[in-house]
Every structure is written in C-alpha cells, then in structure tokens.
C-alpha cells in the first residue's frame, strides 16, 4: 500500500542543509501494525508526515496505493488525506469552540456530506469509543484521554485505510494511554493499517513490526519486509 523509494528530505536551516530523512526505503502492506521509534530529532515524525502526505520529499518516489503521489498537487494530496488517511497527534488538536460531535463531523463536512447524514455516523463512532455521554461537550470540558478519543473518532470517521498516530499517548497518564492504545489496536484488528510514532519502548514493542530510526535513517529494518 505504501512504498517509499530512496526518500530524502532536506531542510534548509540557515546556510546549512539538514537531512531529516536520508535515503529511506520502506514498504508497508495494507493492514500492518507498525511502530516507528527513535530519539527526538531522529526523523520519525518527518517520516510519519511524509507517509501522511503532509510533507513532500526532496528526492525519491512515493507510491500510495500504487499511485505516484510525489507529483500530485496540493488539492489531490488533500483529497487523499481526507479519504484514506487518519491523523492522531500528541496534543489532540481539537478545535476548541466546537463540541466533540462537531469536531468529529469536520472531515465529513470537508468532504461535503450533508448534515442530516452525518449525525448518526458520528454518534455511532463516539459511542464506540465510549463517549456517548460526552458528545456535546467542548474540548475544555473533557479529560486528556477523552480528548484523544475524540481525535481518534475524527481520524476514522471517513473510514481511512491508514491511521497515523504521532505520540498518541505522549500527553496522557499511563491509564488513559493504555486505553487509547487498546482502542487503536481494536481498529488494527478490524483491518486498518496502524502506524504509531513513539519514543516509549513499552508501546513500540506491542507493534508487529518495529522500525528504529536514528539521524534520519532506518537502523533496524526487519529485512523480511523489504
């Protein structure tokens, strides 16, 4: 489903080029459970953003569902993000003035689904993550764990094929963190491709396939997958 070929990403910081990603080759099949680990600055978030089509490679080719996405324009990329990719962030990134329900509705709204056919779908998803009583609360009325569950609901409301989570538990206590991981793994069990970026080995180890990164390179690829 995802093929990265010789991907390099260079940031120009001052005069000096910084290689965030160096010559990355990575194949991800549909329905995999992958963790990307590494220290801060190892390039793991950049890799995730690359996979999630938020960033463009400086060099190399990227195939998403066998389509070369390196050459697509912004709108086409936005379309793919909307329909096929779900994002989860460490800091939840919910829109503060919208209720849980409205936050989850947002991707449907962007896709042009009319209001009357959104409500049922959104309530069903919020119910499935245990927030049926919190649907009309705003983010500041929710706990961290609840906020992340809203964010997960928002990520999966368009039924994407890949779920990308960047330190999803990084801002949560261990109990809420565990619950979040369970929700994500449930989704994996139902067939979604799950990619988690983390520096927490406990969480990283749970993944079927573990990728370790250092200085913009994959240092422990499990070669059988390449």
């Amino acid at each position, binding site marked *: 489903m995802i093929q990265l070929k010789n991907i390099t990403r260079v940031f120009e910081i001052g005069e000096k080029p910084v290689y965030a990603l160096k010559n990355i080759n990575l194949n991800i099949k549909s329905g995999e459970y992958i963790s990307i680990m590494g220290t801060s600055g190892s390039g793991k978030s950049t890799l995730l953003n690359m996979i999630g089509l938020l960033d463009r490679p400086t060099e190399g080719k990227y195939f998403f569902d066998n389509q070369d996405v390196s050459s697509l324009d912004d709108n086409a990329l936005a*379309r793919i993000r909307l329909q096929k990719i779900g994002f989860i962030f460490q800091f939840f990134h919910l829109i503060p003035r919208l209720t849980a329900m409205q936050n989850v509705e947002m*991707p449907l709204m962007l896709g042009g689904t009319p209001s009357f056919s959104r409500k049922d779908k959104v309530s069903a998803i919020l119910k499935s993550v245990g927030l049926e009583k919190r649907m009309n609360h705003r983010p500041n009325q929710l706990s961290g764990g609840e906020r992340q569950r809203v964010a997960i609901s928002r990520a999966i409301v368009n039924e994407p094929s890949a779920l990308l989570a960047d330190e999803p538990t990084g801002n949560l206590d261990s109990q809420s963190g565990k619950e979040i991981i369970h929700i994500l793994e449930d989704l994996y069990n139902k067939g979604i491709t799950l990619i988690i970026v983390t520096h927490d080995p406990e969480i990283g180890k749970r993944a079927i396939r573990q990728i370790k990164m250092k200085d913009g390179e994959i240092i422990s690829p499990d070669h059988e997958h390449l």
Partner: protein
Amino acid sequence: MNIYDIFLQTLITLKSAGTRTILTLLSMAFGVGAVIILTGIGEGARLYVVNEFSSLGSNLIFIVPGRSETTGGQPSVFIGDTPRDLTIEDAIAITRHPNVARIAPIVAGEAPLSYGSRERQAPIMGTTSDFLELRKLKMEQGSFLPKIDPTTAMSVCVIGSSLKKELFGNASPLGQLVRIGDWRYRIIGVISPEGESIGVDLDEIIIAPVASSQMFFNTNSLFRIMVETTNRENIPAVKKHILETIKKRHYGEEDITIITQDAVLSTFDNIIKILTIAVAGIAGISLIVAGILIMNVMLVSLSQRKTEIGLLKAIGATNQQITTLFLTESVFLSFYGAILGLIIGIGGNSLIMFYYPAFPIKTPLWAIFISIFIGIFTGLTFGILPAMKAAKVDPIQSLYGR
C-alpha cells in the same frame, strides 16, 4: 463543504470571538451609518430647495435685462451690458400671446417707511395685481393692488404681516396713510404670513403699483418681469415669443436673459447633489478604516488559529476551503456591519426627522443599495490578504509549533 456548513462554521467562529466580533461590526456599522445619515441630509436639503421652488409655481419664466454672456470688463459683472432697459411697455407687449396667463413686472428697491413716530427701512416692490396669483399669495386683511393699467401710478400699497405688526401692533392698518420716502401711500391690504421664499422675506415687504414705484425710484426700467404660462408645455413657445417681441421692440437686439424655473432648479439640484456626494465620500473614508480594521482582526485571528488551520489541512481541507472559510468570515463581518449601519442610519434619519419635522430628510434608495454593496465589497477586498495567508499556512510547522 456545502454553503450551510461554511455559514455555520463562520457563525460559530464569530460567536466565539465575542467582543472582537461586536467591535468590528460596530466599526463597519458606524461607517455605513454615517454615509446613510449624510446622504439623507443631503437629499433632504435637495428636496427642501425643490419644494421651495415648486411653491413658486412650476410654469414661471423670469426675464432679466441684459444678456448672459461674457462681455469682458469687471469680473463682477455676471450679466452683460444692458444697453436698453426693460420697460412696462415691454411687459405689456409680452402679454399679447395666448399662452401667457399672467405677468408681473417688478421694480425693487429699499426705502424708509414711517407711520407716526415709528420708522423703519423696508424693501419695496413695485408690481401689478397679477402678482398675487402668480406667487400664490393670500391676503390677511383688505385687498391686493387694484387691477389698473400698469402704467398708471396710484398711491396705495400692501404690506407684509410682520411689517404690519411692527408699525400697527394689533390695530387695523387698512386705510391708514404711511410715508414712504417723500411720498404718502394708503395701506389697502396685508399679506398673509408666508415666511422667507428664496431670499425675499415677503412678511417684511411693501408692495406698491409698478408705475408708482418707478416714479418713486425715478427710473423707467424694470428689475425683472415674471411671466406665468398657461401650462408647463407652453414654456418653450412663450420663451420664443418673448425673445421675438423684445427683439422687435429693442431694434433687433436680444438684450434680455430668460431664466426658467427648470434651469434654476436643475442648477441647485446639481450643486446639492455634488455636495452630498462629496460629504458622503468623506464619510466613506471611514468605511476604508473599517475595512482595514476587519483585515487586522482577521490577521490576528489567523495568527491565533494557525494550529487549527494546520489541523484542518492535515485532515484533508484544501487551500480553497481554508480561503473560503476566512473570506466568508470577513464578508460576514462587513456585511452584517453594513446591515447594522443601515439600521443606525435609518434610525438616525428618523431621529432627525422627529426633532426637525420641517426638514424633509430622506434616505435615498441608492444609498441603501450602495452600503450593502460596500459591505460585501469591503469584506471581500480586505479579507483576501488574510484568507490567502491562511491558505499558505504550513501544516507541519503549525501542528508541531516549529
């Protein structure tokens, strides 16, 4: 994203910004309100002048001696040389046309008027009996000038109502003799209070037969001749007749100027319209200020919502959708500001009308349309920059706070 959702999101955002939204709306509202009130006052002034003129009667022609053309000489000379005066005989000659209803030759000047020990300076106007109907005046007491041959002098006069009050108080002036200059005149009537009309205060005036006044001022000439046609459509025909008659009588010289009311009216009309536009234009500058304020508010909002924009992009919003959301917000601000301004403007005009009922204030319809148009236009113009900046937000930078 459908229109309903765009509007809903805009309303939620503007509502959550609370005070800032209200202040921005007010800035726009005061700009639009000022334009509407000022154009209302301008339009009111125009209507006032138009009404004043039509109270004179709408089918009047004024004949003024001299030709209105540039003749060199003193710059203060607006009207050309007057080689020949207008005379009462000229006026009589003009009446010989089927479409001339009535005519009033006029001599004007000022003289001391005294009754007993009281004396005051008063404008004196010499004319004929037709003047009463021509100017649509009413008599308070007695009768107007008698219907006599205009060339005949007669020592009678009619006075304005405030002049009567000053000289006679509540006593009847009819039949009393007053001294005007070196002459004695008998008062035969008092004109009903009229108020000021185009600069001439008819309440303060003495009206005497035209021949007597010419004698009094020791002149043969007329100040002007007022001609009333049988109806409006005949004005051009009468004008032609007047020119031909005067030309014949003045040995081939067309040495008069004919002023129709339409011409005077349209001159005033134009002047006031231009003034109104100028004043409204000055008020319009406040709309630009309001527009810049909207831009500023949107830019502040943009910098506060960068993370949110990054998020929207990450979950699949296109650049156009972000632009649309921001533009809609600024258009909402300016549009609803303009609507609020419309209410302020119309309310302000009603308030002026309430306190000054004599002044016919009227908000012209075009001002309403223009203010709504400006409302949308300002929002679009000043919203473009923030909206384009919003679309350019880099999702990674904004989401990771780099």
